[in-house]
């Protein structure tokens, strides 16, 4: 349980009446608290960004499995380039798109450790396609957490391979025209066809229920890694309110109405007998 103390400063800062029940706010009654392994600093992500939610659930899984000392992460290039500022586990930065190759090296030297990469769609499915596909094809025993927001967030909103048809980005100002700009890349489905791939599952983090499911899936994938089943990927379909030019609420609505019908949620591949 956390040693952090909480001060009720809301009452001082607002005119709203705050009825703060001290009988309930006891350590034994905590049902949700920020995970210990998520470093207690403000994250640089935009308000409502799914990267933060994904970081949070990943660290919750690490906490719950008690593997903080046994897990090594590889950070990407993209908005989550500073993931190691927030995840209190051993981490290594990779060159843009090369996270799966770096993770391969780490896992082969230290097979007893859990190894994961955390990558955006531009990182994983554009510049890093080759590294991703070949790591999957070699059946590297790693977990890839794939954050699909359909855009290059960090560099201010260029079209990604995963951008939806018709979607306006800075490099597709009239909307993505599949005739000239190609079709969105179903990278998870592609990888699922490879024999070295054990588990591929697609989730979102825009509602409480989806957050629960995504978290369970990450835990499952790490469990499979422990059993040495092979390459596991958890795709999280999420938002980029800033570059989609939407409020966080609108962006989650877009995830629900546009992204999820295009990228249906659920297991794409599960290990045999699981």
């Amino acid at each position: 349980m956390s040693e952090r103390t909480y001060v009720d400063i809301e009452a001082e800062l607002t005119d709203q009446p705050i009825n703060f029940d001290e009988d309930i706010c006891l350590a034994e009654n905590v049902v949700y608290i920020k995970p210990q392994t998520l470093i207690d600093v403000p994250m640089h992500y935009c308000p409502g960004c799914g990267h933060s939610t994904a970081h949070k659930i990943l660290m919750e899984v690490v906490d719950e499995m008690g593997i903080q000392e046994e897990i090594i992460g590889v950070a990407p290039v993209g908005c989550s380039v500073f993931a190691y500022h927030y995840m209190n586990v051993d981490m290594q930065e990779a060159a843009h798109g090369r996270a799966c190759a770096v993770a391969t090296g780490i896992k082969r030297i230290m097979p007893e450790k859990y190894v994961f990469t955390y990558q955006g769609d531009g990182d994983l499915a554009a510049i890093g396609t080759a590294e991703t596909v070949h790591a999957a094809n070699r059946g590297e025993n790693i977990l890839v957490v794939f954050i699909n927001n359909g855009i290059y967030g960090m560099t201010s909103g260029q079209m990604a391979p995963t951008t939806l048809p018709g979607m306006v980005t800075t490099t597709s100002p009239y909307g993505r025209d599949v005739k000239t700009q190609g079709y969105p890349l179903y990278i998870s489905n592609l990888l699922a066809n490879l024999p070295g791939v054990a588990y591929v599952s697609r989730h979102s983090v825009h509602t409480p229920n989806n957050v629960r499911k995504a978290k369970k899936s990450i835990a499952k994938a790490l469990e499979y890694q422990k059993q040495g089943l092979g390459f596991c990927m958890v795709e999280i379909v999420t938002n980029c309110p800033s570059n989609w030019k939407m409020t966080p609420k609108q962006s989650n609505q877009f995830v629900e109405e546009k992204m999820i019908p295009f990228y249906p949620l659920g297991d794409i591949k599960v290990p045999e007998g699981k």
Partner: protein
Amino acid sequence: MAKVMGEIIIDIERCKGCELCFDACPKEAIQLSDTINSKGYQFAIKVNDLCNGCASCALVCPDAVITVYRKVDKTKRPVKVIEIED
């Protein structure tokens, strides 16, 4: 049924006012403040006492700034009286 009481504490200095917790709350217990925090964000505040500690708000909060407490008051459990006939 036992009475379930919930309470949330929001770390308002870390809140970015994204409002995602508002829709997640079945009790409409969270709204935006009139004032701002030191980062310049309006922040989430609790506006009623209906919270049942379901933790939905905390699950969707990207920045993990909500701590949720839940207490089950077992004394409120109604006792069913069964009469035994002989």
